[in-house]
């Protein structure tokens, strides 16, 4: 089993290839879903990197996989072209779950 694997666009995959991370290119939701299911089913890696656009395409599938807390552990990274994707940050997720928002000094209203 490989340690890492990535699903994303061709260019980002080339970058991670320099760190010895194999990858599968996916440009459409169908390709992304197929690659993700194959990675989960065949346990090809322990940590699976998804570029933000890919994670956005298969959001539900990723959520379902995360519930199991089983490898491959998913982490979302940006793509090299900085494609903007709207998704809640981890800090937002914590704030929402806890029910209160902790603000840093810089976020405090004057």
């Amino acid at each position, binding site marked *: 089993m490989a340690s890492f694997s990535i699903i994303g666009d061709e260019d980002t995959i*080339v970058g991670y290839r320099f760190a010895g991370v194999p990858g599968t290119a996916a440009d459409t939701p169908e390709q992304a879903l197929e690659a993700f299911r194959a990675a989960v089913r065949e346990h090809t890696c322990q940590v699976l990197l998804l570029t933000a656009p890919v994670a956005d395409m298969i959001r539900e599938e990723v959520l379902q996989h995360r519930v199991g807390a089983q490898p491959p552990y998913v982490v979302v990274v940006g793509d090299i072209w900085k494609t903007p994707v709207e998704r809640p940050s*981890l800090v937002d997720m914590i704030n929402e*779950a806890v029910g209160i928002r902790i603000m840093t000094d810089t976020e405090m209203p004057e």
Partner: protein
Amino acid sequence: MARLNIAPTKSNQLNLRRDLDMATEGFNLLDQKREILVMELMRMLDRVRRTQQRLIEAEEKAYTTLRKAIAHNGYHRMRNVASGISYEHEVRTHTRVTAGVRVPEITVKAGEFASRFGFSGTDSLVDQTMLDFLELLVVVSEMAQIETAVWLLARELKRTQRRVNALEQIFIPDFDETLHYISDVLESKELESFFVMKLVKKRLAAKHRID
């Protein structure tokens, strides 16, 4: 609050009292679990912020180097060089249990930087790309652990919160109200039977006197 639709009998009262005890005990346990999860998430908040910042910086550095390297060497050359690179990364995973949630812990020992391609036809940007992406991989691994942990803990906290609310706002008040209702009814029944008994006793005594 709504009273449960059950007959006001002694056995139902006993059953309901047992259910109320269990619900109260469950509420206390879940409340403790909620507090532990909140503390755990708050403890992680700072780490999340720091790691996210490190990830943004490492991504920015590695991606900028990659874009430059592609511009200098050409995409196909870069792809050819990259296809021959392999590293033995060591990833160890084990799970720890926090408040009943299995949280993974990932330890990564990224492969040591070494020349993996010929020097001819490549420049220092290619070496730098490899170096930057190896550094990025370490931060990404840390993020993988944090992201999974936060996601699982936040989800469990929401579920626990819903259960605590259901017990606190619905079940316990309903049980309480029903128990009060049953107690009232049983008490009035007891009082009624007491008066009936007294009346019977009085009549029997009167009858005895006449006899």
